[in-house]
């Protein structure tokens, strides 16, 4: 499990880490709209530079951001491969295997690269969002926006307990190994289907723990009062509405231009 991205970014305060979470969500939505409305590599290149610049000037760890992009490499490879083999336009090479023609399309290769760029941009956008927005600030912003605190808090709670559950999984795995059941030595094709000896103790211990945690939360008055207090204050600045509406307007204008102009 990778280290949570926001932990790397929080040490340095910047305009990105201090941005109102709802504004950050709107910016992400605007970028997603633009990315989905075109396959133009120039637009993608500009967005790539914009995101890199935002990460650099926002004092986010650019190296970690590029490491996340590496995760996309296997996916990008398969997308491009399938496009090259499946597209029928602009065939540059045909290879006969056992009497069956396998074609290689240049159009498929370019399309594969365009889609790959799209995947990379979306991965970068989401990564920057989670690097910049702290879950506690996010909870507060969602609560202010009218989301029930219980559900707004669920994500923070998940981040809190995930290391505990993963540590349980390691302990259960080691216990099963000592009994002679080593999941790591199972055939990797069927490994998923042999997870029951790990899943059952993990789920049952989790459900038992949930009862204790819920009881402790209730005893401390979790959601006992309608009005909550927070130790973190997240207030939108006067620029936030302008940024939100501006970003959405720009995205919609871009979509309109992309619809009317085939070049984009």
């Amino acid at each position: 499990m990778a280290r949570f991205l926001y932990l790397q970014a929080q040490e340095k305060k910047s305009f990105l880490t201090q941005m109102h979470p709802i504004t950050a969500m709107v910016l992400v939505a605007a970028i997603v709209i633009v990315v989905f409305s075109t396959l133009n590599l120039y637009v993608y290149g500009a967005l790539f530079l914009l995101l890199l610049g935002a990460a650099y000037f926002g004092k986010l760890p650019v190296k970690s951001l590029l490491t996340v992009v590496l995760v996309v490499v296997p996916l990008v490879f398969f997308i491009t491969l399938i496009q090259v083999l499946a597209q029928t336009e602009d065939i540059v090479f045909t290879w006969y295997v056992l009497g069956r023609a396998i074609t290689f399309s240049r159009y498929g290769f370019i399309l594969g690269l365009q889609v790959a760029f799209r995947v990379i941009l979306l991965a970068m956008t989401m990564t920057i969002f989670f690097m910049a927005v702290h879950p506690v600030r996010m909870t507060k912003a969602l609560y202010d926006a009218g989301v029930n605190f219980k559900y707004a808090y669920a994500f923070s709670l998940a981040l809190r307990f995930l290391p505990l559950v993963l540590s349980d999984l390691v302990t259960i795995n080691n216990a099963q190994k000592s009994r002679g059941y080593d999941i790591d030595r199972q055939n990797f094709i069927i490994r998923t289907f042999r997870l029951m000896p790990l899943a059952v103790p993990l789920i049952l211990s989790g459900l038992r723990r949930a009862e204790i945690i819920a009881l402790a939360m209730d005893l401390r008055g979790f959601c006992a009062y309608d009005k909550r207090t927070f130790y973190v204050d997240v207030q939108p600045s006067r620029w936030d509405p302008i940024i939100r509406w501006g970003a959405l307007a720009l995205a919609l204008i871009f979509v309109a231009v992309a619809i009317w102009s085939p070049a984009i």
Partner: protein
Amino acid sequence: MKEKYTIPLTKMSVKDWPGRTDSQGLVGALMVSLAMIGLLQFGERLDTLLFGGLFPVSGRVIAHTMIGLGTALYGGVGGFIVSEINPLIATATGTSPIAPFWLITNGSQVIAMLLAGRITKDVISWKNCILYAAICTVFMIVLYIPLHIFYFHMPWSKLIPMYSFQAAVAFPSASVLVRALLQVVKNAGFVRE
């Protein structure tokens, strides 16, 4: 006469929607969700190795199983907590580029379990588990085709063998695993009135 079990299993007097929304429902669903994230580590590695994560098979089996279990135990809201935490964590840790799309696919599995539960009216039964896996399989194909067309620009008609392979593996495996886990949870005493 055979006893019948309805959603949510942890408090059957409550309706399946919204299900349990108290602290225990919230934390219990969260724990099932975190267990799913832990178990998915085994599945996602294989999916990335085989198809770069483009056609998740083992990850899908685990997701079907755990989301079905979570929905059966805690109802609709609990099910959505189980289903939506994983994509958020996967995005926050940068483990998969298509993780945001799972917000939709995982959510559809909650609806599948609620539908199956309403039709069969007995959650811990083979009939329910098979129906659940069948609805999930249909939902997945219906949702993955637009993903492949609009996001990846894939020629989806040429990917039918892949969809068939996914369905052939996920449908029987998820039915058996959901049924087995529901039985285990019942025997462990978590099914209550």
